[in-house]
């Protein structure tokens, strides 16, 4: 699958928020990655590290005080400079399907799931007529394994897992080649997390590209082909999931710390807290919390395509890693 053209190609993407008083928040800095069809890239990192801002930038949903730089190509379309009309009419729902963080808040509370599915089908596909729409809505529900018996319910009558499936069904209707899932598993219990990510995996295996944003490392391990680790707005490591979670393990000291913090590993936190995005140090942003920090860390480590660190753990098998 390496040879195929990526669905999404992000090059040097940066997002700055301008605040009153001239303060600038560096939410995302110089992000580079590709997502290919049939591939799942999981973006992990602590809350507040810029993951969700990156997703909003791709959908053109940043607030007015944001400035972007760099490129994000969806096929031949430049997402960062596309105007709202193009994004609204051809991208959202049609070329990028969004699976939201909180499905209960994403669904319209005063309408049944059936009517929301039918409306989306009518908007995004050529299906017309009551009976045809009804059938298409039922089909859409089936694709996300939403039980037909619950179609006439309102969002508040659904459990978290069913609401998640309803939101996924809506995201799948436009047959978008890229799915963007922003923390799809927060607040779900472990069984539901497993079921939700397994369903997402099925859509990846049906040759869609999936960019999933999460802080749940167990969910990431279950679904990912590749893992990108974000720290203080920068991607600090990009690795094959099999290496990252496998025997060779992550190479960046921050990624190693995150994995070691898991309760089934050493359960020890990384000392300290992430830096403020409005006040980042000149050099490596992780140096203050890093036990390997040296004088070299006062300079910013360049991102080599797989890692941004002055003293990473040795690479496992270089041929597995792709920028």
């Amino acid at each position, binding site marked *: 699958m390496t040879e195929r053209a990526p669905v999404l190609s992000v090059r040097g993407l940066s997002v700055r928020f301008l605040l009153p008083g001239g303060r600038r928040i560096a939410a995302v800095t110089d992000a580079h990655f590709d997502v290919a069809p049939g591939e799942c890239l999981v973006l992990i990192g602590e809350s507040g590290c810029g993951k969700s801002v990156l997703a909003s930038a791709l959908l053109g949903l940043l607030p007015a005080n944001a400035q972007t730089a760099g490129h994000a190509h969806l096929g031949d379309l430049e997402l960062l400079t596309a105007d709202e009309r193009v994004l609204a009419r051809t991208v959202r729902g049609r070329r990028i399907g969004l699976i939201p963080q909180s499905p209960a808040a994403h669904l319209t509370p005063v309408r049944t799931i059936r009517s929301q599915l039918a409306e989306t089908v009518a908007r995004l596909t050529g299906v017309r007529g009551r009976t045809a729409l009804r059938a298409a809505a039922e089909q859409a529900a089936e694709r996300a394994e939403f039980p037909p018996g619950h179609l006439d319910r309102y969002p508040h009558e659904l459990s978290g897992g069913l609401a998640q499936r309803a939101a996924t069904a809506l995201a799948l209707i436009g047959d978008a080649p890229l799915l963007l899932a922003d923390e799809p598993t927060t*607040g779900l219990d472990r069984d539901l997390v497993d079921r939700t990510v397994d369903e997402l995996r099925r859509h990846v295996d049906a040759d869609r590209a999936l960019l999933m944003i999460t802080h749940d490392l167990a969910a990431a391990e279950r679904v990912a082909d590749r893992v990108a680790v974000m720290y203080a707005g920068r991607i600090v490591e990009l690795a094959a999931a099999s290496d990252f979670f496998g025997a060779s393990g992550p190479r960046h000291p921050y990624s190693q710390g995150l994995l070691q*913090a898991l309760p*089934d590993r050493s359960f*020890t*936190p990384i000392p300290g807290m992430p830096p403020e995005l409005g006040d980042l140090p000149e050099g490596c942003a992780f140096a203050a919390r890093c036990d390997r920090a040296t004088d070299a860390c006062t300079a910013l480590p360049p991102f080599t395509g797989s890692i941004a660190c002055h003293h990473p753990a040795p690479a496992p098998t270089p041929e597995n890693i792709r920028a």
Partner: protein
Amino acid sequence: MLELRSVTAGYDRRAPAVRDVTLTVSSGESVGLLGPSGCGKSTLARVAALLHRPDSGEVVLDGTPVRHWRHRAPRELRTAVGVVFQQPRLSADPRLRLADLIAEPLRATGRRASAEDRVAELADTVGLTPDLLTRRPHEVSDGQLQRACVARALVLRPRWLICDEMTAMLDASTTAALVAVVEAYRTSTGAGLLAVAHDHTLLTRWCDRTVHWKTVTEPR
């Protein structure tokens, strides 16, 4: 000892969320309560924290049967229990700076004078910098806000801690850090803990004893 005896509780008497639950936590013990979403475990945690009056059954806290709930509970019972909820955003007053958020229980119980020192000490324990203490909830991340909520739960030095999905919104490192804070507090004070969660790996690592929701509801 924290004893929940045949507790039935909920929001509709015809369909209680919690039916006939019996659970005992010994002094200084940590018990993890495991159960799927929507099984009623958060409601039980609210009952144990004296925040929800059960329809029937009895709660006994260190030998004293609880007769009143929420603001009507006597102060010596109310202050014996510290609570941390799942969603820090929903459990923090958006108007309060983090320092005031942590100090609020001291002010509410007339111990304003000791607030400054106690807040500084706790901020250090939970890893909040002086700069963060001057901010309001919308200016900090979920992880930072939950650190403040843990500090608030510890500020009155409770004998009991109830943690309801304390770490569900947090990343792995913050989870490990806050569990370490709770455990350090328990080691130094001998406080008991009831931790409610759906993560089996986390609870078995964290607690002395883990019970499943099914085993506390079934009649023995």
